[in-house]
């Protein structure tokens, strides 16, 4: 398996081709079989590969499987090669297995949709591209996957293409991602220009070797981070993710929560050698992460669309991950990535189950009291909520706590800055607990607020949907403790080989004094509990009234939160529309000016012709005079 790593992405790709070309004709059974088989195959193949890898490289060295030399031109050379190293392994496991679960879930969820074959084709395609992203051995190949998942995201968001909003949301996602990709591209150009390669190992060994200019490292890191901002929905490019909820819910779970959006975090961790050498860039990463975490959380507080709440929570949690990688706690970042994949996938799938039960209704104001109607959904959802809110000993507690602890104790930044990051993160964590419980209480408690029809149709989801929920809930519950018990940190141990030793740079897995750590754990738990308590008091019984009250008390804030702080509008007013006006000006103005100038030349020539034409009076005496004048002038000039 190790020398046929390319099989892992190829399997789902084959599924894509099969379903895409023949799925429509061969029917649902075929589509389901192919899709599940291929995703499961990828997961199994991946697992085998991981096992073999661990056996072959107990020290966690990098394994590369060269397929062929992809591009070679002048000083540019890039291989099509897949690699396995501890980081890839983590990602591979998360992506393939969570991916498979969501495929499974989709079988039930999408059963009655029109473009069933199309959906699974796209989903397989996504899986394959995501695997390219995480298995690629160079930035270029990562970029291939990076853009590929962007395309799948575009296609899947726009799955309901006959609506107005879905394709628009897909387009927005693609374009915003492209802005990030622009940064990624330039970063690669810099690497090619100065390092001569974009291979991960080469780049990181060159950087680790020292002597690389600071500005160059900072530039590369910031540009890569721009890419990460796009893909992982960080300020200022986060705007696409909430809109992306227009796609089917499993897609939101897989792409926009568990896997694709975390690619940015993966990339930063992948580039840890560069980042650790560029503390300025790390500062930016941490700050952007912290701000995003808080900013998105505040918006999440006052959304009614169940998926929108989860979307903002995703943005917020991604912010946490960036705090983690930004403060140099790369392990913590990955840790949170993994736990987040578990609980956020569970939450999204749970919300999908709710929506399924509600016959497609997504507005929480129409829900309420679902706890008894769909118990499995409720319980899995509740566990995942504990996890995201950071209740010990659920998964999110460990990862989030580790991030916040590292933020406060990191060896890179001055203390005030660390405090700032920490406090922003802590407030965001509080908000998280608050809005998540608001969601739970509005959805599952109180009275049912929907129509009679909806109430009549309420039902628990089929097993193909609940089984993934249960598995994910279980992982959300225990995943954190298994992977990252403080000071017995499995993940940290596993990932250690990917952080090269560098002279004069702090350790990637720096120690935090146990005292400080336990104190902070306490603070985190308290924050989660307080968040839960406030939400409970407000929403458990009063439901929507609490929201109304909030709007009465603080109308401006409420309206701001409701309208996502008017960021989309601001972008529209400051960037999109001026640019459009400018383009129109170019078209109607500059183009017309060029054409006009040339037309003017033409007209002048024609006018000269027309003017000279009137010397041709038809009168022979005039011709004679013209003749004679010519003679005179020539005599005058020449003689």
């Amino acid at each position, binding site marked *: 398996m190790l020398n046929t790593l390319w099989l892992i992405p190829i399997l789902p790709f084959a599924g894509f081709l099969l379903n895409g070309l023949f799925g429509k004709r061969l029917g649902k059974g075929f589509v389901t079989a192919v899709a599940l088989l291929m995703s499961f195959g990828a997961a199994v193949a991946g697992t085998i590969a991981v096992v073999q890898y661990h056996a072959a490289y107990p020290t966690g060295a990098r394994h590369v499987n060269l397929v062929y030399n992809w591009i070679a031109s002048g000083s540019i050379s890039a291989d099509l090669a897949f690699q396995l190293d501890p980081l890839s392994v983590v990602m591979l496991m998360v992506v393939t297995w969570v991916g498979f679960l969501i495929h499974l879930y989709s079988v039930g969820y999408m059963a009655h949709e029109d473009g069933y074959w199309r959906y699974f084709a796209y989903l397989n395609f996504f899986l394959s591209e995501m695997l390219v992203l995480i298995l690629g051995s160079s930035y270029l190949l990562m970029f291939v996957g990076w853009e590929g998942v962007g395309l799948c995201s575009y296609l899947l968001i726009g799955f309901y293409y006959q609506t107005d909003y879905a394709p628009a949301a897909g387009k927005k996602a693609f374009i915003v991602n492209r802005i990030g990709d622009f940064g990624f591209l330039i970063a690669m150009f810099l690497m090619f220009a100065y390092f001569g390669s974009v291979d991960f190992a080469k780049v990181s060994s060159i950087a680790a070797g020292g002597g690389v200019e600071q500005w160059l490292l900072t530039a590369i890191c910031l540009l890569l981070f721009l890419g990460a901002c796009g893909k992982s929905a960080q300020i200022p490019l986060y705007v696409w993710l909430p809109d992306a909820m227009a796609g089917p819910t499993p897609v939101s779970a897989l792409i926009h929560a568990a896997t694709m959006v975390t690619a940015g975090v993966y990339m930063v961790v992948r580039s840890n050698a560069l980042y650790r050498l560029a503390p300025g860039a790390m500062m930016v990463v941490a700050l952007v992460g912290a701000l995003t975490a808080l900013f998105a959380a505040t918006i999440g507080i006052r959304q009614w669309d169940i998926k929108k709440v989860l979307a903002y929570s995703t943005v917020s949690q991604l912010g946490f991950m960036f705090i983690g990688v930004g403060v140099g706690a790369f392990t913590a970042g990955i840790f949170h990535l993994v736990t987040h994949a578990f609980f956020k996938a569970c939450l999204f799938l749970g919300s999908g189950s709710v929506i399924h039960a509600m016959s497609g209704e997504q507005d929480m104001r129409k829900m309420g009291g679902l706890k008894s109607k769909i118990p499995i959904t409720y319980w899995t959802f509740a566990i995942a909520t504990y996890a995201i809110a950071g209740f010990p000993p659920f998964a999110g507690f460990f990862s989030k706590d580790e991030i916040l602890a590292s933020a406060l104790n990191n060896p890179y930044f001055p203390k005030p800055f660390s405090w700032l990051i920490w406090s922003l993160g802590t407030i965001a964590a509080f908000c998280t607990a608050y809005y998540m419980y608001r969601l739970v209480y509005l959805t599952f408690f109180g009275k049912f607020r929907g129509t009679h029809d909806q109430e009549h149709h309420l039902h628990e989801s089929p097993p193909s949907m609940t089984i993934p929920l249960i598995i994910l809930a279980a992982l959300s519950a225990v995943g954190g403790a298994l992977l990252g018990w403080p000071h017995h940190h499995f993940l940290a141990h596993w990932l250690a080989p990917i952080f090269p030793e560098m002279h004069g740079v702090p350790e990637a897995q720096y120690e935090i004094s146990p005292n400080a750590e336990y104190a902070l754990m306490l603070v985190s738990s308290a924050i989660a509990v307080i968040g839960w308590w406030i939400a409970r008091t407000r929403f458990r019984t009063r439901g929507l009234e609490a929201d109304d009250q909030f709007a009465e008390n603080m109308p401006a804030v409420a309206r701001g939160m409701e309208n996502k702080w008017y960021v989309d509008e601001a972008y529209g007013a400051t960037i999109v529309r001026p640019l459009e006006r400018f383009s129109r000006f170019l078209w109607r103005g500059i183009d017309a000016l060029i054409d006009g100038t040339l037309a003017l030349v033409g007209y002048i020539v024609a006018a000269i012709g027309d003017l000279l034409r009137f010397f041709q009076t038809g009168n022979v*005496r*005039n011709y004679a*005079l013209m003749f*004679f*004048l010519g*003679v*005179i002038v020539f*005599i*005058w000039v020449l*003689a």
Partner: protein
Amino acid sequence: MIEFSIFFFFAAIAVIFAATVVLHRNPVVGALSLVASFFALAVMYVLLEAPFLAVLQVIVYAGAIMVLFLFVIMLLNLQHQAEPRTRPVQQFLGYTTSAAFGLALVYYLAKFGVTQLPDGPFVSDARTIGIRMFEAYIFPFEMVSILLLAAIVGALLLSGRTGASGETTKSESPAPPQIEVAP
């Protein structure tokens, strides 16, 4: 001295009658003035020791060509047609430019024209001319015959009435549609 007086007298005649051609509005008067002017030129040829040419001038020009002119004028009954004065710009430019041209020409001719005359007589009688003509100039001379033939044929052709010989009656109805635009 006598030569000079003759020259000036006839030069004056030539110029005055030439001017009359230009200035007088009756074509008949113009034609007759031109004849007079040509006579004066014939005298000049005599002064220039070319008597044969002088005779030719009188016979061909004054005698034949100008008679032809007069004939046409009479034929077309133009002798009463006085032309109206119009097109002032054309007239003005015509006078001024030709005046400038004439002045320049006279100036340069006076300044750069030859002054030294060779000695000895200039043999230019009919015999000499004839011999030269039929010896060295035989080819152009023959070609002049073609020229004149062409002129005669052309004159016949152009002045003939429409529908005269050579033109079929078909021509009265315009444009037989032999070549037409295909549908």
